[in-house]
């Protein structure tokens, strides 16, 4: 018998102008001991399904139609009090961000005990005993000691284990996990997923996992529901849906997922969600203003040579040097970037990969080492004119499309700023022409210039960022996680655009990402970073097929296997 049955569920969010249908006539069900994945890109309505089941839809959202059954008993029409008793007791919930899900002022024990005693008729002492058992069962060492601690004393992964213990503490029949591993690093993600799968089987709990990540789906789910703009487009066994998708959206979504096992030349274009931007006007780069970036003085050997680069940040300041505490973000890192290649840097959060990007662009000043760009030593530049000349040659694309553009400036002014600042054009009319051409070239169209950034989607904003970066005619482009905040289908488009631009303009690129699959698709050579140190540098295929450093092997092993995924539509190299 199914633990959860959702029948014809429709959820609406009325707004001033219209009614937004977040979930439209959706059916799905989960059996005990099984995992159902709900996958989709942003705006698909997948989180809304979970919130509707547990009865915590955010105002003014409400269930406009359909029924939800738990063990055959209808639960969507219960009173507020009845729904509250269901939460925690019958349905447990796991949130996305373990850092904010726990009350910072209460010990882990008191949060567990209060939840246990709310739902089960246990004495304080028995509840305590049970809490310790739970903490033990989610794999936290020294449960009796650690349970007395406060949330801030746990690391992110450990906190997520506490959250899981809290969700399970009254033996619920169903657990809803909303992006349970999205905020975690790859290595911890794998452990948490394994733990969830194990607990689900051992305790015969039904689990609803909501995620945007095909890797998570492939890893732990038995069934999968693919959602797109509130509609359920495909639903079935995971192997079936991933291996032989029927719906065109699922097909294009799967083909857009970057995979570590196959190298493709270009990502298949997904036209399903957003018009894939193609240049609306063909520009002959060789004669255009943009093409002059090829005119830089050629250097023999690598374009960028980094030697013994060191960076430490002061964590605690003090007037006494002995009292100061430092965090060593980058330790003695050395590598070269050849002209015209894409050099990838991969690592988990805190590995120092973004710091390297900021050191090269001059946002931070290194505490040691040297950065040679062409023939110029960047760390010893003092003359403002020389600094500006260097700045012009290297530009950067940032991670967050929502904060990387100034919300108060029009797109045209954002892109024109570097051109005007570096006096790269002789007249305002010429600047205007260049901006229009750039917007055309990144696939937005010149008319986008008069709008403000908030009128664009994440992917479109990332295109604006790229246009801005190109506006100084750089020869070296640093991409710091340029697509990690984007949906996969959009990611594919942006990565294609970057590849095209690199070829046309002969750019040298430094590509930073936490995602090995993306790195494999984009880079010629790769450096692996961990805790500020560079473990290994090797050619792309070599790294994936014959990793040398144990950490690289560990990272590769932890990657969710995507072998289930259909290989249709892929143009392999």
């Amino acid at each position, binding site marked *: 018998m199914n633990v959860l049955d959702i029948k014809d569920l429709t959820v609406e969010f009325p707004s001033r102008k219209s009614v937004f249908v977040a979930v439209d006539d959706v059916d799905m069900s989960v059996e005990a001991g099984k995992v159902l994945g709900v996958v989709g890109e942003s705006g698909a309505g997948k989180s809304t399904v979970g919130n509707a089941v547990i009865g915590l839809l955010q105002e003014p959202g409400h269930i406009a139609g359909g029924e939800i059954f738990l063990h055959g008993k209808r639960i969507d029409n219960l009173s507020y009090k009845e729904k509250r008793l269901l939460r925690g007791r019958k349905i447990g919930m796991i949130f996305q961000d373990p850092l904010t899900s726990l009350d910072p002022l209460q010990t882990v024990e008191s949060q567990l005990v209060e939840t246990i005693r709310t739902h089960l008729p246990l004495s304080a002492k028995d509840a305590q005993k049970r809490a310790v058992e739970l903490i033990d069962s989610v794999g936290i060492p020294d449960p009796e000691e650690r349970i007395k601690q406060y949330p801030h004393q746990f690391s992110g992964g450990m906190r997520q284990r506490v959250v899981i213990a809290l969700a399970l503490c009254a033996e619920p029949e169903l657990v809803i996990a909303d992006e349970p591993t999205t905020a975690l690093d790859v290595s911890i993600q794998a452990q948490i997923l394994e733990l969830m799968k194990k607990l689900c089987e051992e305790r015969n709990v039904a689990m609803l996992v909501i995620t945007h990540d095909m890797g998570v789906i492939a890893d732990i789910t038995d069934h999968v529901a693919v959602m797109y703009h509130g509609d359920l487009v495909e639903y079935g066994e995971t192997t079936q849906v991933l291996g032989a998708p029927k719906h065109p959206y699922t097909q294009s979504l799967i083909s857009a997922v970057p995979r570590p096992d196959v190298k493709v030349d270009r990502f298949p274009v997904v036209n399903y969600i957003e018009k894939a931007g193609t240049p609306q006007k063909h520009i002959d780069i060789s004669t255009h203003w943009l093409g002059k970036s090829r005119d830089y003085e050629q250097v023999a050997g690598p374009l960028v040579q980094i030697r013994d680069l060191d960076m430490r940040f002061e964590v605690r300041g003090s007037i006494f040097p002995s009292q100061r505490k430092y965090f060593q973000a980058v330790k003695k890192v050395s590598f070269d970037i050849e002209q015209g290649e894409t050099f990838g840097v991969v690592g988990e959060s805190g590995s120092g990969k973004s710091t390297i990007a900021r050191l090269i662009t001059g946002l931070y000043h290194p505490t040691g080492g040297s950065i040679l760009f062409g023939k110029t030593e960047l760390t010893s530049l003092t003359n403002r004119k020389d600094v500006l000349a260097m*700045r012009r040659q290297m530009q*950067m694309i940032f*991670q967050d499309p929502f904060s*990387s*553009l*100034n919300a108060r400036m029009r797109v045209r002014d954002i892109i024109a700023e570097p051109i005007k600042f570096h006096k790269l054009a002789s007249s305002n009319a010429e600047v205007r022409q260049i901006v229009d051409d750039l917007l055309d070239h990144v696939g937005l169209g010149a008319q986008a210039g008069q709008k403000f950034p908030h009128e664009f989607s*994440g992917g479109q904003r990332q295109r604006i960022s790229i246009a801005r970066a190109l506006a100084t005619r750089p020869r070296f482009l640093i991409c710091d996680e340029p697509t990690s905040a*984007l949906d996969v289908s959009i990611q594919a488009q942006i990565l294609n655009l970057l590849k095209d631009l690199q070829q046309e303009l002969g750019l040298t690129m430094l590509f930073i990402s*936490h995602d090995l699959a993306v790195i494999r698709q984009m880079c010629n050579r790769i450096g692996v970073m961990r805790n500020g140190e560079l473990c290994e540098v090797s050619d792309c295929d070599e790294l994936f097929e014959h990793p040398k450093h144990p950490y690289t092997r560990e990272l590769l092993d932890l990657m969710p296997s995507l072998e289930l995924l259909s290989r249709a539509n892929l143009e392999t190299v």
Partner: protein
Amino acid sequence: MPYVSNEEAKAAVQDRSGHQVAPGRLSKVFDSDMFHSFLRSKVTVVAAIGTFILFMLAFLAPWVAPHNPFDLASISILDARVPPVWMEYADPRFLLGTDDQGRDLLSGIFYGMRISLIVGFCSVVAAAVIGITLGLVAGYMGGRVDTVIMRIADVQLTFPAILIALLIDGIAAGIFGGVDREIFAFYILIVSLALSFWVQYARTVRGSTMVEKNKEYVQAARVIGIPSVIIMARHILPNVMGPVMVIATINLALAIVTEATLSFLGVGMPPTQPSLGTLIAVGNDFLYSGEWWIAIFPGLALALLVLNVNLLGDWLRDALNPKLR
């Protein structure tokens, strides 16, 4: 951390339906959520209209007031302490009665409100300029500059504005010793109010600046090579103005109250250029002898003015706070 948060997803959805204000386009302003929230709150609409009327009465006082309280020729001591028209012994020429020197109270209130508002506006602008500049510099530069500015702010924050204004006034009186204080009263007031209120702007602007400066659009500007001063002025300043507007509105109310308090205490505007506070101070002496209107009416006018401005400020704060939507 590289992930798509729910907030971002929501923002993306919201953005695609284009629900926000594009500055400079009137039609979009009228269609915006902000304008809508304004219309939905009836209290706010009433407050806006009330504020507008009071501002008009104050600034157009020479034209709308029935009498000119500064025209000595038209004032007669025989008309002193006439009660409001609905009471016994009233004079129909004086709607709200007269003060101890025979000046029409209603006209006095209009003119007094004018002085209160001018002092309020000037001090708010002065405080904002000082506070925004120091806040931007402290937040953007960080380090020693930040420590020094913020320590000064901390020390000052331990004292309420009124105390600081009183002290500055006392010091000014000491410095200008023999000189006729009335000439300087207006400027001393503005300086003391501005110096009492700048901290709030500085702290808020510093806080927002520290958030903004780590955002990637600022880093992008730095990568382009744009100098700090231009980054602060062109990129950061427009993005931190939202909270500044809220503080300025609430501070206008506070400045009017503080000015009135100082004048009431006898260290603000002199009786020759009476603000609302001065009028109340004068009237206070007659409270016990039954001539209550001399103090109460200017007091009510002051309360009404401040209440309306506060209501607007309150709404503005909620409307600009995305967390409370």
